[in-house]
């Protein structure tokens, strides 16, 4: 009876719902997708390989959610948090909820905007679905961590912290940058650079870290989200190819965005590098190994593919290649020094961890970093644990405190300076300065934590006023792991406090 209709045509009928407006001009209905200079000849060339209609979306996503929440419920009923390797591990989750989950929210809103404002319907439908997915990610993460929040410090004010605590300015400014950009740059920033190129360096470390450290809740939401990422990666690549294929004038614009956004992403990931190498009691792989596998190998293959459009690997890839031996150690050092003002705990790595680091970083760890950590350990043992009372200068672009060294001399902290409109701006690196000089009118606006504190916009003068403004529970959310309530509670629950009750295990 019925005429057959192939899936491709069917999907087209299901999504090509727009029309050329005439009572209102198209430029007024879609006001935002021309000012960046990207030329589009034919929006119909946008292909969505997933061809998901809303009903199938609801069906698959609803099934995934059902399974996910069943596991989360079981996790909290059985106090699954007691099965993790060690309470130090929980600091990786704190960093995630404070620094990453709010970005999922920002992605939800950003994709909603593109989902309304791209002129092409295919692009809009794909962005809308990703917008919903990103809402899923932030909400499942908040729900997943809800159990940890009930038993550990460092989670309970995550939205408040994301808006103000200094190190969270790193991820926040990254996403504010993307969301304040036009829709095409947003797609290169988030859809391509982040979702396609860098996502593995963010999610794999967290999720495999969770698996290695017995955190079933995080493993489950991680894997469940991963099934959405396949769609997101495809969208990111599709957006890139679309821009590159529509007009050759688009190529240099896209190249500049790729250069900017891979560097911006790389700098955000430096926090992840410290998490991987220092926070995880059991480490599945080092930052260096992850960088080599997910950026140098996978990214290399990708850039080979893009070469036919005239796209090249960013020139700073060399810097990253050299920096991979240093990055995590320097970032952990920064966090360790400033833990008084951070909603997480730090510690000096123990001997086993330092030996592991020597093995993973044979060229640098023993030479530059082990002596530093051993010195800090001696100081701690002598009762001289030093917490920095002030914030150092931070980079105007990436907002990380100046602590990265010159590529040719790992003992020399790198500084770059430029002037704009009569003011001086400081940078951690050449690529960060280049990003600024390309868009000084944007980056001069950045909300810089040290300057804001100095101007009295963060509660007042001095660390105590700032920490009160941050709503920290002093000595619980911040400072060392040693002596923290996290440690005390953990030892009590696990029977490690010598109270003789034995070990509590998740049932």
């Amino acid at each position, binding site marked *: 009876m019925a005429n057959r209709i192939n899936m491709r045509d069917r999907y087209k009928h299901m999504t090509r719902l727009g029309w050329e407006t005439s009572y209102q001009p198209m430029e007024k209905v879609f006001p935002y997708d021309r000012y960046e200079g990207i030329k589009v000849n034919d929006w119909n060339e946008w292909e969505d390989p997933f061809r998901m209609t809303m009903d199938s979306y609801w069906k698959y996503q609803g099934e995934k959610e059902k399974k996910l929440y069943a596991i989360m419920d079981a996790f909290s009923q059985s106090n699954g948090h007691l099965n993790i390797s060690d309470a130090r591990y929980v600091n990786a989750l704190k960093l995630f909820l404070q620094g990453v989950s709010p970005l999922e929210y920002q992605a939800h809103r950003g994709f909603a905007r593109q989902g309304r404002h791209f002129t092409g319907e295919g692009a809009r439908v794909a962005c809308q679905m990703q917008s919903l997915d990103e809402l899923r990610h932030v909400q499942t993460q908040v729900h997943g961590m809800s159990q940890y929040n009930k038993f550990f410090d460092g989670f309970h004010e995550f939205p408040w912290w994301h808006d103000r605590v200094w190190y969270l300015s790193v991820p926040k400014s990254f996403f504010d*940058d993307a969301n304040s950009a036009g829709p095409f740059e947003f797609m290169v920033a988030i859809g391509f650079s982040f979702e396609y190129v860098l996502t593995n360096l963010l999610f794999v470390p967290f999720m495999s870290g969770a698996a290695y450290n017995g955190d079933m809740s995080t493993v489950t939401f991680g894997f469940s989200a991963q099934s959405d990422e396949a769609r997101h990666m495809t969208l990111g690549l599709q957006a890139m190819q679309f821009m590159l294929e529509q007009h050759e004038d688009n190529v240099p614009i896209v190249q500049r965005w790729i250069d900017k956004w891979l560097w911006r992403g790389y700098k955000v990931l430096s926090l992840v590098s410290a998490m991987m190498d220092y926070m995880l009691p059991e480490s599945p792989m080092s930052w260096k190994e992850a960088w080599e596998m997910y950026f140098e190998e996978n990214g290399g293959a990708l850039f080979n593919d893009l070469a036919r459009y005239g796209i090249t690997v960013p020139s700073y890839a060399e810097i990253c290649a050299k920096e991979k031996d240093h990055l995590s150690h320097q970032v952990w050092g920064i966090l360790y020094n400033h833990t008084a003002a951070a909603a997480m705990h730090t510690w000096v790595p123990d001997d086993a961890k330092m030996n592991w680091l020597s093995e993973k970083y044979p060229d640098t760890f023993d030479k530059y970093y082990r002596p530093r950590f051993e010195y800090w350990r001696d100081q701690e043992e002598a009762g001289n644990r030093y917490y920095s009372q002030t914030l150092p200068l931070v980079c105007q672009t990436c907002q990380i405190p100046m602590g990265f060294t010159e590529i040719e001399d790992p003992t020399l902290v790198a500084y770059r300076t430029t002037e704009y409109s009569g003011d001086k701006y400081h940078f951690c690196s050449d690529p960060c300065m280049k990003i600024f000089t390309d868009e000084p009118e944007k980056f001069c606006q950045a909300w810089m934590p040290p300057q804001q504190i100095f101007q009295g916009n963060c509660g007042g003068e001095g660390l105590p006023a700032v920490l009160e403004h941050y709503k920290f529970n002093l000595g619980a959310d911040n400072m060392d792991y040693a002596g923290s309530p996290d440690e005390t509670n953990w030892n009590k629950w696990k029977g490690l406090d010598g109270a003789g009750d034995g070990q509590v295990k998740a049932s």
Partner: protein
Amino acid sequence: MHIDIKAKEVKPIRHTYSHIARRFGEDRPATRYQEAVLDLQPVDNFHYRPTWQPDKELYDPTRTAITMEDWYKFLDPRQFYYGNYTMARAAQQASADKNFEFVEKRNLLALVPAAAKETIVDFIVPLRHYEWGANMNNYQICAMGYGASITSAAAMHGSDRLGNAQYITRIALALSDNDPAILDTGLSDWTDKDVWQGLRKVVEDSLVVDDWFELFVAQNLAMDGIVHELFFEHLEQKLNESGAATYSMLTEFIVNWKTEASRWVDSQIAIAVEENAANAALVKGWYKKWFEAAQRAVAPLADAAFDNGSEVMANVTRTLEVRAAKVGAAA
């Protein structure tokens, strides 16, 4: 070693996130809905002005003229977060799927009288584009709105509207034995046929509204209140009476959705109106403007679809006026 320790040993140190406890005025357990939406949107210390709207912050309460002491008063009576939203829709789409399967397998649409079929082609199929406009407007509300509770629900509502457009597309293809020409006709009716031009104009006018809460009132209360009431209540009933009962099996999703979604729409508007007198005046003004425009635009469609079009239109507007009065939007 597994020793049973009394539960008292592993006591929570708090029951929910502190920003939620602050709202409660005490630390007590929150629902999944509350943890999923409250305070999720960034509010302070934005780094850069949007290049697409440099006079505003990235998230800015002044993208609407209404004001709220607390934007999280806009709670969803359905308490939808992503998880229970997709699970609820998955169940509804499963039932819709069964209906489509039932009808298509038995070729029941063949039993629908020709005149009724023609009515569906003339008056339901072009609504694909109306729903698409509603999809755009609700994503606009999500993108430009303020506070994670109303904006997340708007994204879901926007996707629901795409779902509606797709259900109408399926009905059309089922009617035409998969001949896509039926969709082309629907599109050309929408863009060119006189009787649809009034409604298309209202939709296009709504697409350029700057104030997102005005847009909420225009689309979700005024325009939908007339369009959905006319086509998915009155015309639905007429089709039923003229032997197209099968068709009602295929619109079940949309008809049920409409009842559920209006609960959310009405509650949001009532919340804005109750907040302060200035909001109430704004909402009333917007409602009047868009209600009148929609009413004028839809009247010719009612005349074309019904012998007693003006009587039906009077019924439709009366129903909406009662609803609008209830939420404080009517003058």
